[in-house]
């Protein structure tokens, strides 16, 4: 090293201060990046933020809503899910038999609802594999308690009772057009189903989604289909009708016609279910692209919220279509704003401080080197052509240190992510690389300027050699 011993120590301290400042700043940035990135991923992956339950009060209200808004909602990249709705805090949802291969991929929105309410496995087992014939099917007589895990037995019992009353009310509405013996059969079947369905609690480790905690019970809508089919099935004799739905106590299953568990033709792709018209119903709107990751000038990634859709939903709230979606819309907006603000401030702070440190400290290092080495360098240049090497070395030194510090911290972060099994986007490499490249580029002319007395058109080696 060309420095004298005492100067050498000062130079080493200056370099150490640079490494420390750069390392501390990068570390602090990565820690905050990690925190905001986890929050961002949580929000982006939150299934509940992809579905909005909008209220319609009556059947005619629902019909009007579908007529007025379904096309508009489609324009915003969303769709109304026709196979589920919330009625009396209970979610009624279609369970499709496994024999309908391929429907799962096509029904992305319904799959999301299954996942959201943690009923993916039970949808697969609702229909028993052991079948009597091509025409019959066995259905497990269960409903699913969505958030009853923490409730006392008394409350559960009371909810079960209320559910049965709801189902009875619905069945009574359906029976309106039935007459005579047919009504007797219908009532018998109603009792068979309603009396025998039982509560199945979900996985003990399952926590109900806080954004959907108002849903108490999940009921396979196939039970309603059975009632509706019985009412509409005019081809079967009354005696045969009595055999069409049987409860088998040993297996806890309902044996019925396969066709009775499918969506009635009149309700295919519709949500009206005119049998249930006492209370408001909440229809699900599937909006998978409300929240998306967004790059800002390739500087950082935050969350882009589909403002048009959210504004539209807000308008709907003012028109009375609120409840399940109202609070969620506000929660989404607040969360996204907070996370985006954090991401913005973290990146802005990092870009400014890192570039400042990455330029100012190397500048000080080069200046220090020039001031303390000008005599030695000018003496060296009298004999050797090492100007390019000198400029390169004092440019490369801080650049190399920056690379080591940032590369080391980034590698450590990747190891941390791997050890924790966290699958995060490692796009942080872009911001680290960008500041590194920018600082390196900006520092290049600054470094040359520091040594300009050796590189100008005015040769001055003699004066510099004398220490002037």
């Amino acid at each position: 090293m060309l420095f004298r011993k005492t100067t050498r120590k000062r130079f080493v301290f200056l370099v150490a201060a640079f490494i420390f400042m750069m390392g501390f700043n990068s570390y602090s940035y990565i820690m905050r990046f990690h925190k905001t990135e986890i929050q961002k991923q949580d929000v982006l992956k939150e299934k509940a933020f992809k579905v909005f339950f909008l209220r319609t009060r009556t059947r005619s209200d629902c019909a009007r809503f579908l007529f007025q808004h379904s096309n508009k909602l489609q324009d915003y990249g969303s769709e109304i899910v026709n196979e589920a709705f919330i009625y009396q805090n209970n979610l009624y949802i279609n369970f499709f038999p496994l024999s309908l291969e391929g429907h799962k991929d096509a029904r992305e929105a319904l799959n999301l609802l299954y996942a959201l309410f943690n009923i993916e496995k039970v949808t697969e087992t609702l229909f028993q594999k052991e079948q009597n014939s091509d025409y019959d099917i066995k259905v497990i007589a269960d409903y699913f308690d969505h958030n009853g895990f923490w409730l006392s037995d008394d409350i559960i019992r009371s909810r079960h009772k209320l559910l049965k009353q709801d189902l009875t009310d619905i069945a009574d509405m359906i029976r309106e057009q039935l007459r005579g013996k047919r009504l007797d059969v219908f009532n018998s079947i109603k009792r068979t189903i309603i009396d025998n369905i039982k509560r199945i609690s979900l996985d003990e480790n399952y926590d109900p989604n806080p954004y959907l905690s108002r849903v108490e019970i999940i009921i396979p809508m196939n039970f309603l289909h059975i009632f509706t089919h019985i009412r509409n099935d005019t081809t079967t004799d009354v005696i045969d009708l009595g055999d069409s739905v049987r409860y088998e106590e040993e297996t806890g299953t309902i044996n019925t016609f396969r066709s009775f568990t499918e969506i009635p033709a009149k309700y295919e792709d519709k949500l009206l279910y005119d049998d249930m018209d006492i209370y408001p119903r909440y229809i699900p709107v599937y909006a998978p692209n409300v929240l998306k990751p967004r790059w800002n000038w390739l500087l950082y990634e935050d969350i882009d919220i589909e403002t048009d859709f959210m504004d539209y939903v807000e308008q709907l709230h003012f028109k009375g279509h609120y409840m399940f979606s109202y609070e969620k819309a506000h929660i989404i907006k607040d969360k996204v704003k907070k996370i985006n603000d954090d991401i913005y401030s973290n990146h802005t702070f990092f870009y400014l401080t890192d570039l400042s440190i990455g330029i100012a400290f190397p500048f000080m290092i080069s200046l220090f080197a020039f001031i303390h080495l000008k005599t030695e360098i000018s003496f060296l240049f009298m004999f050797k052509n090492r100007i390019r090497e000198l400029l390169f070395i004092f440019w490369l030194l801080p650049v190399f240190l920056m690379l080591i510090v940032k590369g080391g911290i980034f590698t450590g972060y990747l190891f941390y992510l791997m050890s924790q099994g966290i699958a995060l986007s490692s796009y942080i490499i872009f911001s680290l690389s960008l500041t590194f490249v920018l600082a390196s580029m900006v520092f290049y002319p600054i470094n040359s300027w520091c040594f300009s007395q050796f590189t100008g058109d005015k040769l001055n080696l003699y004066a510099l050699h004398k220490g002037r």
Partner: protein
Amino acid sequence: MENHFKITFPLILEHDDSFSIKFVSKTSDSLEFSKGIYYLCGDNGSGKTTFLNILALITGNIGKKAINKGTISFNGEKYNGDHFNYIRAAEIREKSFCIFPQKAFFLPISTRDNYIILNGTEKEKEKFFSPQESPDLLSGGQQQKILIDIVLDDKKPIWFLDEPLTNMDSERRHYFWQTLNKSFIKKPLMIFFIDHWLDHVIMKDEDFQHHVTLAVNMEHYQKGKSLSVETQEIEIFRNNAPSNFFNRQIRDNESGMSLQRDESSYRNIGH
């Protein structure tokens, strides 16, 4: 091709708008230097060192932006040419110039490392330098001797020697002249030489001819004060075949060395 300088006057050097120095030949507008030894004679502060520094490309303005009306060209390449810059200047210095600075100086490393970094052309010669000894701890005379060994390189055709004999005893002067003589025999050189104690020797030496007289005008500008102008002269003497001169110096210093030894023995006997 024989190395040569051609200077077109006036040569002007300015320092930060506070000082300017102008060199003009008293006999013609241009001046040439080729093989031989050139001795620069003049009072202190007459600009001898500055003139050598301009020639040796360690001070002065270069490139197309240089304001000089006159110029120096080395082997036909002008210092104020369009393509001449600090890189080209460094290349010429490294390839052609040996510069013995007025002030002995070393890098803060061992003498061997100094040689390797500053010269390093001969592996065999490296062994003569100590790998541990720091040149900063040596006396002025010893430093000059080591600097001679490090800097003077007969592979380079132009030598600029600015008072190399100051602080040297007869033995080291003897060594210096021997070095010059051997190098000149090996390969003809162009040597520029400044010394304050050889003026009368050079002027009387029959092998040296007067080459040129340079008039040096120096102007000092100081804020709030009137312009101060000073005029000096530099005489340049030339010797095309300096071997005889070198041999005479070697002999003179040999006698000086024996006189020193005699005095030393006399003192020892006296004591």
